[in-house]
């Protein structure tokens, strides 16, 4: 029950005397919570990446014992170090779940949204600080549930991150734990979304009108609405599937289902398609939950480092809002192969083509923003620039999937995996790295090392493409996804099966390429170059607060006088005009 508990003022005044636990663990400060979210998100990204690296061994060298850790996985998962197909399925399902719901969303929305948005709004904190804390701990419980499910007797959920019924209804693995974990995660997102929207509506600094709001805040607001309105149907679907598994109902089980040669003893009468509809009603907006905050971060970094206002700020904002709307009526383009007939397909193809327009507008506006700028190639900017073409490839390869004629042959191949990962891995993740490097000084008061940052960026860019581009080639050759042996037993895969080794080696090299980041991250907390309030000469409000900002954020009254990206204003004595600077100077 989300009770909007307001922070009691009397209680807040005593905050400085609070114990370690209240200050760093059960804190109500949005910045501490933002850091908690970010660290949790980064840890789960790493964990999800590890799952994938084990999978990639199986794909590159099917049936060979996994080196180093093979013996540690246990006899029921990998006897003699050789991975069982069931374990491969678990890894696949949990990789998707963890990366999406426990990696990217906590980092992009919970982490950056929580830390940066109130600062950019000039607010002292979130509107409901205690709800904010509860939201984080719900996520934490969800994460623990998901992680712990690996140690269940039958292993973790292994029915794909989409958990399609009827398989997920009758599977003996940890699907029930997956559902319980998801209910925690959904609760966390709902509480967060309520908080974000209320904060943006109520706590903007004086003078900060809607069209003076940084693009990042807009992205967070639209994202919050998507989470608020799209997640509950999945929660409902989760409850129904839980009932199917626990109370033996038949919401998603049709009549006369035969399993293992015998008719399943259930009442039947349900519809497996219903799960797909409810799932994708959330999961398509969820894709925009993954990408919109990333676009927001990239917009901030590009405006700041090209020393130019964003090109077409208004059209970007309107595109964003339109994108949010449209994302609710495109979901069935994930379901062309369910045989839904040409009438429905036509409708969803049309909406899918329409939704590509605002994405293209935003991406084009970001490209044009670079034109004629005096660009600073620091690490955040490199990641932001890397985002643009990578997301471009991801987006454009998605167009064939939005048309049912092209989707039907491509749908179950690696092409889909390649497309989606281009959007989310070198797309969203690069933007998130840009955000980490960009706002690190605000969190710690110190900059991250530039050399190590570049050592992180360039290999990552190369190896990301090394992992995901061959997937497109494989997919166009018809290699099915979800296969534990990488398709080598199929004749048509013969020509391109060898690419599996290249992709796997790229993935492991990608892991090595993250080492500079990890070293940089921990070393810079203590030894990084000291940063003042505004190390990047930026205009938005978060740079007005001290670095690191104290509880309550600002040590001065704020009166916003101008738009968010007034860089290189003609006739001005410096090349940026902070939002809160009086207009007369």
């Amino acid at each position: 029950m989300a009770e909007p508990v307001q922070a009691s003022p009397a209680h807040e005044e005593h905050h400085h005397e609070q114990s370690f636990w209240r200050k760093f663990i059960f804190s109500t400060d949005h910045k501490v919570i933002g850091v908690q979210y970010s660290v949790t998100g980064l840890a789960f990204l790493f964990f999800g990446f590890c799952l994938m690296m084990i999978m990639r061994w199986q794909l590159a060298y099917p049936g060979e014992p996994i080196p180093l850790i093979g013996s540690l996985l246990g006899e029921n998962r990998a006897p003699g170090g050789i991975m069982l197909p069931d374990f491969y399925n678990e890894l696949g399902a949990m990789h998707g779940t963890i990366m999406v719901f426990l990696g990217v969303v906590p980092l992009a929305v919970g982490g950056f949204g929580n830390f940066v948005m109130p600062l950019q709004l000039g607010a002292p904190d979130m509107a409901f600080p205690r709800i904010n804390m509860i939201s984080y701990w719900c996520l934490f419980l969800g994460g623990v549930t998901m992680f712990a499910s690996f140690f269940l007797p039958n292993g973790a959920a292994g029915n794909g991150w989409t958990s399609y019924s009827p398989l997920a209804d009758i599977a003996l693995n940890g699907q029930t734990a997956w559902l319980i974990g998801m209910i925690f995660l959904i609760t966390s997102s709902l509480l967060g979304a309520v908080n974000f929207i209320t904060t943006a509506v109520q706590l903007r600094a004086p003078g900060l009108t809607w069209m003076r709001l940084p693009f990042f805040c807009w992205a967070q607001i639209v994202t919050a609405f998507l989470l608020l309105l799209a997640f509950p149907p999945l929660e409902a679907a989760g409850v129904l599937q839980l009932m199917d598994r626990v109370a033996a109902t038949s919401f998603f089980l049709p009549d006369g289902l035969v399993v293992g040669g015998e008719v399943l003893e259930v009442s039947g009468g349900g519809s497996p398609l219903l799960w797909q509809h409810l799932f994708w009603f959330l999961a398509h907006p969820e894709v925009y939950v993954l990408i919109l905050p990333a676009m927001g971060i990239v917009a901030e970094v590009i405006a700041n480092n090209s020393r130019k206002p964003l090109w077409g700020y208004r059209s970007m904002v309107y595109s964003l809002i339109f994108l949010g709307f449209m994302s609710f009526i495109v979901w069935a383009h994930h379901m062309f192969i369910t045989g839904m007939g040409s009438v429905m397909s036509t409708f969803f193809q049309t909406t899918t083509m329409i939704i590509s327009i605002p994405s293209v507008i935003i991406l084009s506006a970001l490209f044009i923003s670079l034109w004629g700028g005096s660009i600073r190639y620091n690490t955040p900017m490199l990641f932001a620039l890397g985002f643009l073409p990578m997301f471009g490839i991801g987006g454009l390869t998605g167009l064939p999937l939005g048309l049912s004629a092209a989707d039907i042959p491509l749908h179950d191949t690696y092409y889909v995996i390649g497309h989606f990962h281009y959007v989310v891995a070198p797309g969203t993740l690069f933007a998130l790295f840009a955000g980490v490097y960009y706002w690190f000084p605000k969190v710690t008061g110190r900059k991250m090392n530039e050399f190590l940052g570049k050592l992180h960026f360039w290999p990552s860019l190369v190896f990301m493409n090394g992992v995901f581009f061959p997937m497109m080639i494989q997919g166009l050759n018809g290699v099915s996804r979800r296969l534990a042996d990488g398709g080598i037993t199929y004749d048509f895969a013969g020509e391109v099966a060898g690419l599996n080794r290249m992709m796997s080696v790229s993935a492991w090299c990608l892991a090595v390429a993250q080492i500079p980041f990890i070293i940089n991250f921990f070393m810079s907390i203590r030894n990084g170059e000291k940063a003042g309030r505004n190390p990047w000469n930026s205009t938005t409000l978060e740079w007005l607060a001290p670095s690191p900002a104290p509880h309550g954020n600002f040590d001065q009254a704020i009166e916003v006088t101008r738009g968010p990206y007034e860089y290189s204003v003609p006739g001005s004595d410096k090349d940026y005009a902070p939002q809160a600077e009086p207009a007369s100077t």
Partner: protein
Amino acid sequence: MEIPYTVEAHPETGLNNGKIGIWLFLTSEVMLFGALFATFIMLRIGSDGEWAHMQAEAELNIPLATINTAVLIASSLTMVMAWASLVRGQLNKFRLFGWLTVGCGAIFLVIKYFEYTAKFAHDHFPSSNTYLAIYFTMTGLHALHVIGGMAWNAYFTGPGSKLFHTNRQWLTDRVEHSGLFWHFVDLVWIFLFPVFYLL
């Protein structure tokens, strides 16, 4: 540090934070129950005319459910009366109406308990057919909301009412917001009752 507009209204929106927060939360609740109603419609359409048969077989207790509907509507009345008492500054009346609201919720749950056990006694389980499945799921989820609302109201009527002496306006607003949730739960039941029992 104090969060602005916790009690007083924002000059532009005319609302305090809590009011916006609770309404946003209710929109998500609308989508939650909306998805379940959509499921209901789909199962009914997909039942090939078996629905009426399953419904008749379930033998839901209409008189008990009618009483329960009246109980919930009455609890909505006591809820608004609790709020109105606070507006008038009558703490004792507020407590009386607050506990009456919680009491109505309890009566509702007790009646629901008897309904459920009667079904179980006749071997009617969620697994029996899709009608009973969606019936138990939706009414069960609704009952969970009733429990949540009762806890919320009990807190403000009991320990939370101390706020009356330090910040009466704040308590009044909080009770209004918890009332919004309570009325929403009532509103869901107004649909559940005819949909499951009568139609």
